[in-house]
């Protein structure tokens, strides 16, 4: 019974649950903001990388490489602890969102680029031959086809961003993990940590299953 009262202590769990739920909201807030900003930034970067002049293309490629290489925790600590020295002072929330978005946009850009490049050349030629402007070629012909291809890897990226929000606890952000560690300290019992782990699983397992389902459906859809 010692194991149960240590890790699965129901009264402790009940007591910490409101705190954990507040943490969950913060986690979802950071995650959703970063995912949306990362999607927009990534699409923008992907189109620049494919169609801008050589200088811009080179800069975008450098951005993508740097932010895919740097550890997120290092970036987050730089944003929160180093930027104030040059007068940029971001709240814990915006520090976390900034770091997550910078990295997510880099990954998303590569996903979109691969999706756009997977569209046959004939689709670009047929729409150009009709006199469609570059904008309509993208929005009417290429992107609707590319989206189908990129949904599984994009969902995967969303899962990664949501998981990485846990790093925000390092910059004193009261996210799910931070709330759990505080509740643990308060009650001198690790049950809140187990509770947080279960909440992460409830949030992310369906998304993981969904990606698996999409990938299966997609591979079946191709002859």
């Amino acid at each position, binding site marked *: 019974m010692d194991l149960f009262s240590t890790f699965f202590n129901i009264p402790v769990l009940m007591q910490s649950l409101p705190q954990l739920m507040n943490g969950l909201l913060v986690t979802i807030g950071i995650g959703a903001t970063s995912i949306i900003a990362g999607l927009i930034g990534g699409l923008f970067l992907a189109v620049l990388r494919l169609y801008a002049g050589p200088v811009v293309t080179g800069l975008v490629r450098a951005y993508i490489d740097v932010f895919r290489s740097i550890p997120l925790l290092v970036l987050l600590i730089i944003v929160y602890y180093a930027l104030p020295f040059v007068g940029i002072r971001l709240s814990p929330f915006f520090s976390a969102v900034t770091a997550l978005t910078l990295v997510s946009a880099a990954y998303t850009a590569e996903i979109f680029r691969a999706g756009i490049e997977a569209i046959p050349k004939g689709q670009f030629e*047929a729409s150009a031959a*009709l*006199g*469609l402007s570059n904008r309509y070629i993208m929005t009417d012909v290429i992107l*609707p086809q590319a989206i189908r291809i990129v949904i599984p890897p994009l969902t995967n990226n969303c899962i990664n961003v949501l998981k990485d929000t846990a790093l925000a606890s390092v910059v004193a952000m009261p996210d799910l993990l931070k709330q759990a560690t505080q509740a643990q300290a308060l009650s001198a019992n690790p049950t809140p940590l187990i509770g947080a782990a279960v909440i992460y699983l409830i949030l992310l397992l369906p998304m993981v299953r969904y990606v698996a389902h999409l990938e299966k459906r997609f591979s079946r859809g191709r002859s």
Partner: protein
Amino acid sequence: MKAPLIKISNLRKTYGQFVALHGIDLDIAQGEVLCVVGPSGSGKSTLIRCINHLEPFEAGSEITVDGIPVRPGPDLDQVRAEVGMVFQSFNLFPHMTVLRNVMLAPIRVRKMSEADAEKRARDLLERVGISVQADKYPAQLSGGQQQRVAIARALAMEPKVLLFDEPTSALDPEMVGEVLDVMKKLAGTGVTMVVVTHEMGFARQVADRVLFMDGGAIIEAGTPTEIFDAPKEERTRNFLHAVLDH
């Protein structure tokens, strides 16, 4: 005399060291049906892909369509709106219904209303014999049907000229006829057509003028009778011998 609809002068195209087109000069008249024949790699597809600038060409080359120079820049979309193209591999938009495929460019480029575009699209699909399949997706159609939709899609822009890049080469033999029939009907309506093809029977029957190309140059041009019955050049004779006598 009327100015030609398409004027090509000194058209040169190279891929690295390889010269695909050696300074082509060619005028195409309003209403003319021009068939371009020749062996693979002779530059005939490259030639028509230059007319709407799907292939960029070398400096010093000049192409005008209805007086508008073909070159990168703001005028290019305008030229392309007047030049319809039908591809060997159809290139229909797979995520749109057949009807939407035909409606897209009139709405986006000609700023036509949905209702007008739909009416025009249904009329054109009727003309090419695909009206029953209007709400299907391209993948649900046979190759011959897809190519007829592609012709309707090009016609929806009411182009001044239609370019056909080997339109029957990717088709199963039993579907070639239905596409050629649509093209024959079109030729009778007075639309200007430039057709790259291996269908010698079609060229003989429908063309006003036949162009024989080899090695990136026009070797011989003339009426179908001149080219097919009395070719002057050795290379033309050899080619026709190879494709016709077996």
